């Protein structure tokens, strides 16, 4: 059941009515029923795997809680660790088998020359998101950051809350669960804020991303025909990817707000980042913070990394000894980030590309600082800031050639064309989706104006001059803007079936 389908819209309206008519203490049950119904309707068979994850997580967390309560800390720790590892192996095991086993088999077959058949495995909806939520919760219980939930159904709601189940954001138990369980009175401000986010999300997804997708697809499908606009192919991919993912997240956040639940933000004007490190603090924030809290910190402070630090300090000096464990941890984190995005070498390569640049910028940080001092560059100057933003943007674009091209060869070919050919008029030879060539100039104009609106909104937000929910506007003006955004979808978006959400495939 898609988030923009009529079925979802009607069900959402019905669930909202029932939710606010239900006493607060029982509202979470309404959300649970809606979430279960939503998931089973979307993917009936995959419900088994979701249920398995919930049960594994529940019993492992309860077991750790019991151990922590019944024995002293020193004795409890190894026992809890065993339960934690068991729980993580089981949760990640389901994900690994269903999502990554075929990838592994393909590579084994390629290396050994053996003929290994591809298994027909079901990929449950949202498995990457809910697995990260369950494992994060297990680790929080292990580290005593949160208490184990004693009610299985309440934990089930945290894992399966329907607006964020398909494409995130990845929720944290300590922030999300209390909101889901406490119940909410009808708050018109929440409805208004929710509608703002939904309208903006629809605009990003169904006007910007869908138009960008039409042109990007045409360029990458026929690079020779559109060689003069190859560079725009990847720029359009940026618009498509951001509009698609951020738009989807806005929908999830907006729908949650209708129930009084505030999900974590997942984007903070990522294209105004001055470095890749900053980019990952602004793009897919919940995945970045999850990796930081549950992989990077434990890894960089592990005994192994401490030993690496000591040995490298003895051999290369104090500075390298301090930085090398961080760089290695970064590489591992970004390897996992790449892998999370899908079982392909392209994704792994893309993750490592980010990891290598971030690690090398850590290692070479001192060199850069010296160079800046010698060249009399002030880090806080506007010019330098702009330069770093453009530099980061270029690095991101470069990585996305490999993401949207079908192969490494095609990506290199597209990069070559981008540098050697430039003929923007070729845009006019791409027929706008379903409406033909005559409509292309209008589609391009819509896309340009849409990108300009997005840029201005992000710029104002980055400078703190515009909140996502402009509270100060008169309510009628707010209503008009929300309606204008919603109406822009049929009036300005492609006149074809809506494209799917890219991040819903994970």
């Amino acid at each position, binding site marked *: *059941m*898609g988030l*923009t*389908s*009529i*079925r979802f*819209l*009607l069900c959402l309206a019905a669930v909202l009515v029932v939710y606010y008519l239900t006493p607060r203490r029982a509202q979470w049950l309404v959300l649970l029923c809606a979430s279960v119904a939503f998931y089973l309707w979307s993917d009936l068979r995959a419900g088994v795997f979701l249920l398995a994850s919930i049960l594994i997580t529940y019993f492992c967390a309860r077991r750790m809680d019991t151990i922590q309560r019944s024995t002293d800390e020193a004795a409890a720790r190894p026992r809890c660790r065993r339960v934690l590892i068991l729980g993580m192996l089981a949760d990640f095991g389901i994900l690994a088998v269903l999502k990554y086993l075929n990838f592994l088999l393909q590579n084994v077959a390629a290396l050994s020359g053996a003929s290994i058949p591809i298994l027909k495995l079901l990929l449950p909806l949202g498995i990457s998101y809910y697995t990260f939520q369950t494992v994060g919760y297990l680790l929080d219980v292990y580290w005593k950051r949160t208490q184990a939930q004693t009610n299985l159904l309440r934990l089930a709601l945290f894992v399966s809350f329907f607006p964020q189940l398909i494409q995130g954001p990845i929720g944290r138990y300590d922030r999300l669960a209390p909101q889901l369980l406490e119940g909410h009175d*009808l708050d*018109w*401000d929440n*409805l208004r804020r929710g509608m703002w986010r939904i309208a903006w999300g629809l605009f990003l997804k169904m006007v910007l991303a869908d138009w960008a997708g039409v042109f990007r697809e045409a360029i990458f499908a026929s690079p020779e025909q559109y060689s003069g606009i190859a560079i725009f192919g990847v720029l359009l991919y940026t618009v498509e990817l951001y509009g698609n993912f951020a738009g989807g997240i806005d929908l999830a956040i907006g729908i949650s707000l209708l129930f009084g639940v505030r999900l974590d933000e997942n984007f903070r004007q990522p294209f105004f980042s001055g470095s890749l490190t900053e980019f990952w603090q602004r793009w897919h924030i919940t995945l970045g913070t999850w990796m930081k809290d549950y992989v990077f910190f434990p890894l960089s402070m592990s005994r192994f990394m401490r030993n690496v630090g000591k040995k490298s300090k003895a051999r290369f000096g104090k500075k390298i000894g301090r930085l090398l464990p961080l760089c290695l941890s970064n590489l591992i984190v970004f390897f996992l980030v790449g892998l999370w995005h899908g079982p392909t070498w392209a994704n792994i390569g893309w993750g490592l590309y980010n990891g290598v640049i971030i690690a090398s910028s850590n290692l070479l940080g001192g060199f850069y600082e010296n160079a800046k001092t010698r060249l009399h560059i002030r880090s806080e100057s506007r010019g330098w800031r702009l330069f770093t933003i453009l530099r980061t943007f270029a690095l991101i674009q470069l990585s996305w050639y490999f993401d949207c091209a079908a192969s490494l060869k095609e990506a290199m070919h597209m990069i070559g064309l981008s540098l050697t050919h430039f003929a923007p008029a070729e845009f006019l030879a791409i027929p706008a989706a*379903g*409406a033909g060539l*005559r*409509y292309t100039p*209008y589609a391009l104009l819509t896309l340009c104006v849409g990108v300009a609106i997005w840029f201005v909104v992000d710029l104002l937000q980055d400078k703190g001059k515009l909140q996502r929910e402009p509270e100060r506007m008169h*309510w009628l003006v707010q*209503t008009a803007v*929300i*309606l204008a955004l*919603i*109406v822009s*979808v*049929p*009036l300005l*978006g492609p*006149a*074809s*079936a*809506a494209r799917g959400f890219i991040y819903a495939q994970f």
Partner: protein
Amino acid sequence: MHSFNLQFRRGARRFVIALVLAGLLFWALDLLLYPCTFMRNDVHVLATEQRDVLILGTSNGKMDLDPDSMLEHTGLTGHNACVGGEYPVDAYFLAKLAMEKQHPSQIVFELDPGYLMTEKEPGNNYLLFYHEFPMSRAKLSYFAATLPDCDFRALLFPFYEYTLNQTLPHVGENLRLKLHRDYSVEHLKGSVQAYHENGMIEKYVVAEKDFPAYDPVAFDPDQIAPRNLEYLDKLIDLCKENDIRLVVSVMPLPEQTLKSDANWDGAWVWFAEYFKARDVEFFNFNREYYDLWSHDSIFYVDWDGHMNGESAKGFSRIFGMLVFSAANS
């Protein structure tokens, strides 16, 4: 508490006003931008006027069957509600709507085997019919059966598949026709075809050299979309339940098309058996009644088998004599 109540009421008032404004805006956009198609007239006739014979089916039925010629010596009245993109699901609900509003005695269903092989795409293909349905049980059941999985634009903005440069030039005309409930057909006559009040579209003559390329869908009984057969069965049952004579027919195709590699013979055999098993009359002008109408390309406007207006009238007379003769009626 008092201030909370006041605040809550103010919020509720604003929410209701916003909803009303949204409703008005969406209604106005629909009024201005959704085009007045010929299906508007067809559904209007089905819902408001009594006809003895309804013709349902695809574009071949729309262009090949002229109700006036077909029924000229029978004393019966008829309307052609076929259209390109009309799948069995649409035909079924059109028949349901007609039965809710009037009492047809016979239904002719024009069958294109290619349609059975493909799944109907969501979106405007449904809206072409659904949008024109008056509020009725048929409309509600059609909605439940077809629209829930479409995106919200199909419900709130049915005009979304028409681009602005298609719709803006016709805003004034749309407004006039809709506000005056005007179902005249003058605006539906164009340079290549003319829509008639009886629902038939008359195609003007096209030279063979100008026929567009045609690639028929090869028939394979294993590839038939189950939903198409499900609604074809429902249409058959609906007619039986309401004591309506159902006639299924395949329109004549040009000889060159019949020679194409689309497994036509397989299709004819399969459908003959299918309808025989369900005790439905099946008239195939490419097999059993092959000789009743010419398959020469001069009678057609394309390789799809759409006839030009004059041929269609001639063929309709023969079709009427065969299907509505005393022996058959």
